[in-house]
Each structure stands twice: as structure tokens, then as C-alpha cells.
């Protein structure tokens, strides 16, 4: 599953990033954390995991005394006034692979979080050290922002520091200043079985299986930085029958989950045909072309039959 804290700490050491570690009983809030980690070690952080109406996710990591106004943030991101809210619990475990009370900038090390936008308080930069959970809420580590930057760079991310307390005017001639940090891709996180329609009668295990393909299919959607990974998995979809079928099922289930509420089955079937036919034909043609090309290449290399 996701990165473990030990894994992360080992990585920090590999990168020669200096940090101090504090172990304590699991804490769910900043107040509790403050009891065990004094402010002399560094600046405590509050970490919010947010989601917008288009299923795009954000981690906002700030100094505890920084006022984060969700309305202002939403506007600055170009999402309108009420466009952003706290992400649901299942997204926390699906995308960040951490438990409650454990949101941390380090969570973006997970593949599943590749489309989550990370926004850091620029006030962190003035601190000698800042304190975050290293993927587990029974440990805290303090490190300098340069260390955090180095880590983010190592996973192909840019560090984004913003003035979280700024409240610039957003209007026709003043475009939202943070809009560029809105992720290019949205993420489908299936709801927990207890909540919705008959399709979700499956147990939690099955829905966990369903979501794994969503997480692993994301590499085939294009995110800005990691191009070669994208290309490799694109190639796989067209070469490997299992990946091919997985891709088809991902797209079908995604459509089912987004359209399948309350529609009768015939109408749904029609929608499927309409929306998916051309896309799947395209996929199938590329699959065919790949197979043919491999055969063709094999033909050029093959030795003539012995008489």
C-alpha cells in the first residue's frame, strides 16, 4: 500500500536531509501534539486536506497561527466563493494513505496522491524548523523548509509557498492568483459501501479492489511532470491484455459511478454506448496496431524455415 513512516524516514536519510524525530502517543489534533512536542523544537503546523467540486484535492499546510480563510482560498484558486471544503475521510485513506489526524506534506510521496496539489505557508520559510507528521500520527519530525524542498524535488514536485493570509481582489481583470495550482486532473474516489446505491453492496474489500485500479490507472492520465512513467504505462495498456481490460473496466466503472444514480438501466446502457463506443474503439485499434507491429517486427527478424 502506501509509504510507511520508516520508509519515508529512510528516504530522508538517504537524501541527507537533517531532521529530528519525536515519538509520542498517537495524536489527532494540533493541541494534543503541542503537549508532546514543544515549540522550541520548531513551528507546529496545521494540515488541511481539501477537495473542490470537481474532485480535485489539495493539501494546505500552514503555521498554526496562520488564518486560513476557506472562502478566500477558494476564490484565489478560481473556484468561486464556496468551491472548496474538507475532503471526506475515504479520500484521506485512498489518496493520501494516512489515517485521521495525520495529514502532512509528506503524503504526496504516494503514487495515489500524484494529482493532489500541495500548498505551503510561506511563513514556514522564516522558521528554523517546522514540525510535520512523517505519515504516522505517533511520530513528529522537525526539519528546515530547505529539507522539505529537497525531499519534494526528489519526487519530482516543486515546492509551492504562498501567502495564505493574503486576500487579493479577484475579479474580471484580476484573475485568481492561485488558479495555476489547481490540479489538472480530478480523482474519482468511490464512496464507502454504507452510503450509496445498489452497486455498492459489495463489502469493503471489494471496493478496495475496485479503487486500486483507479489509483494505478492514473499514471495513464497525464500529469505535468512524470512523462516517461506515463509513456511506459500507456504502452503497457496496449501490449498487455490484463492492463487493456483494466483500462476498459476503469473507464466503464468511472462512468457508472458518475452517471449511474437514479437512471433506469436502459437509459444507462444507452449512455454507455454513446459515450464509450468511440473511445473503446480507439483503444482497440491501438491494441491491434501494437500487436501487428510486434508481429511484423518479429517477421523481419525471423530465420527462414530450414528445407
Amino acid at each position, binding site marked *: 500500500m502506501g509509504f510507511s513512516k520508516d520508509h519515508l524516514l529512510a528516504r530522508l536519510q538517504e537524501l541527507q536531509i537533517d531532521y529530528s524525530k519525536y515519538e509520542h502517543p498517537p495524536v489527532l489534533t494540533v493541541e494534543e501534539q503541542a503537549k508532546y512536542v514543544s515549540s522550541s523544537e520548531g513551528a507546529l503546523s496545521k494540515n488541511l486536506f481539501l477537495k473542490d467540486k470537481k474532485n480535485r484535492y489539495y493539501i494546505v499546510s500552514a503555521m498554526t497561527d496562520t488564518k486560513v480563510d476557506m472562502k478566500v482560498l477558494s476564490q484565489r484558486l478560481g473556484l468561486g466563493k464556496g468551491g472548496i471544503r474538507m475532503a471526506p475521510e475515504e479520500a484521506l485513506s485512498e489518496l493520501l494513505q494516512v489515517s485521521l489526524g495525520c495529514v502532512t506534506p509528506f503524503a504526496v510521496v504516494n503514487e495515489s496522491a500524484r494529482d493532489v496539489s500541495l500548498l505551503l505557508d510561506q511563513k514556514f520559510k522564516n522558521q528554523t524548523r517546522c514540525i510535520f507528521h512523517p505519515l504516522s500520527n505517533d511520530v513528529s519530525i522537525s526539519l528546515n523548509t530547505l529539507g522539505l524542498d529537497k525531499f519534494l524535488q526528489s519526487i519530482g514536485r516543486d515546492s509551492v509557498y504562498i501567502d495564505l493570509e493574503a486576500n487579493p481582489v479577484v475579479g474580471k481583470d484580476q484573475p485568481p492568483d492561485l488558479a495555476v495550482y489547481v490540479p489538472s486532473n480530478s480523482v474519482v474516489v468511490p464512496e464507502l459501501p454504507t452510503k450509496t446505491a445498489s452497486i455498492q453492496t459489495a463489502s469493503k474489500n471489494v471496493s478496495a479492489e475496485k479503487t486500486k485500479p483507479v489509483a494505478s490507472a492514473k499514471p495513464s492520465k*497525464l500529469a505535468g511532470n512524470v512523462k516517461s512513467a506515463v509513456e511506459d504505462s500507456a*504502452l503497457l495498456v496496449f501490449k498487455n491484455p490484463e492492463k487493456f481490460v483494466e483500462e476498459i473496466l476503469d473507464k466503464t466503472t468511472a462512468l457508472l459511478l458518475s452517471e449511474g444514480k437514479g437512471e433506469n438501466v436502459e437509459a444507462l446502457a444507452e449512455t454507455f454506448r454513446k459515450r464509450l463506443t468511440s473511445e473503446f474503439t480507439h483503444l482497440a485499434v*491501438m491494441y491491434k496496431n*501494437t500487436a501487428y507491429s510486434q508481429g511484423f*517486427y518479429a517477421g523481419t527478424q525471423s530465420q527462414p524455415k530450414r528445407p
Partner: protein
Amino acid sequence: MDVDKKDSIASDSSEQVVNPWEVAAKDGGKIDYDKLIDQFGCQRLDDSLIDRVQRLTSRQPHVFLRRGVFFAHRDFNDVLDAYERGDKFYLYTGRGPSSEALHLGHLIPFMFTKYLQEAFKVPLVIQLTDDEKCMWKNLSVEESQRLARENAKDIIACGFDVTKTFIFSDFDYVGGAFYKNMVKVAKCVTLNKAMGIFGFSGEDHIGKLSFPPVQAFPSFPSSFPHLFPGKDKLRCLIPCAIDQDPYFRMTRDVAPRLGYSKPALIESSFFPALQAKNGKMSASDPNSAIYVTDTAKEIKNKINRYAFSGGQDSIEKHREIGANLEVDIPVKYLSFFLDDDTELEHIKKEYGEGRMLTGEVKKRLTEVLTEMVERHRMARAAVTDEMVDAFMAVRPLPSMFE
């Protein structure tokens, strides 16, 4: 022949100029397509033809047909008549590989050709005129060959079926049966005619003069003996942008004299530039076009900042008067790429009557284009050099009509 009069290029800047190397509207305004049809002497693709295509192919006609993007033709009716009788045809289209950066306008003929291939179940030859670009754009031979291969990858990514498609570059393929046909065609076109059709002058080098036959005879099945042996009467249908018409007028003129069927044409209008100036999207101005390599952010940015809007200056005025749909680029682009007729009508109505704002239309457009570009990129990533080799190999295509 009548052909001569119609073919002379209007060098007057107060007339619109449309030829394979230049497209400019009259006085910097819009291209007058009706006049073009008159001037060129081709025919309008009307609704009855579109219905006929629907009946013959048992599927919804492509969005480009429904929206009048492909709007003119020559002899398309005859091709359909023959098809109904059981006489197939093959498709021929091409690209001049002048740059690596392909934009959406470049993809349009290929997207349409792919639909034709699937709907009618016919084979396709694609010509990459690397020699033309070497001559006209003064590229080195190696560079134009390299660009041809790179462009081939984007073309393949449009979804052509390798068992029915032959891609070739002129530098690779010209010779043999091809060259024999080239000479036959060249013998039928006088220097004066060529100068009249293409606007050549005494200053142009002779390479240019000898090029038109190269583009002409992929229209003749005997140029592909490995594909169509013995099928000399097989008809050819050429989907292309209307500025290519001069080449094929010449070809149609020559065909009967060589005992071949005249190639049929189905022609498209130009894809407008983002800023709506002049005739068409230009690969040299990056902000006039959406490239297949643009990221989602870049697409969003380009549309928001550069797409020429027909909306009014203020929200109040807009709600009162509505948008000017004639000049609005986002709506025009949506009419090319938004498949859902109902949704497009809805947008046009709401926007035209002022209830929908430019921002919303642009947002929808960004979604549609981003999806398209990402799909293309994924397919493109899967195109290997082996695949290009396979598409370009001179090989028979036994299942080409299946």
C-alpha cells in the same frame, strides 16, 4: 479549357487567395466559402448526401459532416453510387511535414479520414510529402525525412488500422511503378498550365515544377501494385482541406487521358486561428493554435487569454444583447469538436441570447479540447518506431476491405 480561367491565382489583395501555399481572406476578413466553391467549381455537400452516408454506413455521420466542416465535394455522389453497387473505393490523404508541432487544425482531415475508413471499411494510403517541404521550406533532406516520421506517429495516434493503412514518404517510395505514373501525368500537363494552376514563375526552381505530379498520382491505384494489383479501375476518394483543390483539379483533368477514373474529393473549410485573424491556424504562431503537445494548463490558458470572444464588453450589455456567434471562436471550436448536437444547440441558444457567459463557454471548450488532446497523447505515447515501420512497410493488405 474552362479549367484555365478558374485556376488563375488572384494576385490582387482585394480578392481572397486560396492555394496550397497561401490562404488569405479578402481585406483581412473572413473566407467566403460560397465564392470559393464557385471559383473552384466544386459542389456543396448538402443534407441529402449526409443522409445517404448515414444510410449506407448504418451509423451517425461524423460530427464534421453534421456541422458542415467538410462542406464541398467533387463526385462524392458517384463514389456512393458505386459503393452501393458493391464497387469499393480507397482513401488517399496526406501531410506536408513542415514542422514537428502539430496543432488541432492539422488533425482534422485525419480524424475525418479515420471515420471514413471505419464507416465504409476501405483501405487508406497516406502520403508524407517530405520532398515538397524540402523544396518549399528549404529543409535538408534528412530533416524533412525525420519530420515525416515524427508526423507519422501523430497520424497513427489518430487511430488508423494498420491492416488497412499504408503510410509512405515520397523520399522512400517514389520510384518504380510510382515514377512511371508520375511521368505519365507529367506528360499531360504543359508548363503554362502548371504556372496557371499553381502560380509558378520563372524565378521558381524546377524542383517545384515537377512536384505536382507527385501529389497527383496516389489517386491512381496502379501506383500501388503491392496493394491493388489488377484493380486499375478502383476509385479513389480524397479528404482534404479545400486549399488542396488545385492539385486535384489538375489530376482529374489528366485522369481520363490516362484511362483512369477521376479521383473524388471531399473538402473541408479551414480551422480558424484562436485570435480569429485571417484565414487559418498557423504553426508559426504558437498562440494561434492548440498543439497536441499542450498541457491541460496551457490549453486552459490559451483559450482564456487568446480565444477571440463574441461576448459583449460588460455583463449587463451581454445579458441584453447576447453574444455575437458569428465571430465567437469558442463556439466555433465547439462546433468542430463537441459531438453532442443537443448540447451545442443549447450553448448557442443560451450564449446567443445572453444568458450564458463567455467564461462558461470557454470552460466547456477547455474540457472538450483537453480530453481530446490527452487521448491523443496517450495514443501517441504508444506509437513505437516499430509501429511506424510496420505502417510504412511496402506490404500487401489482405483484409483491407473487411
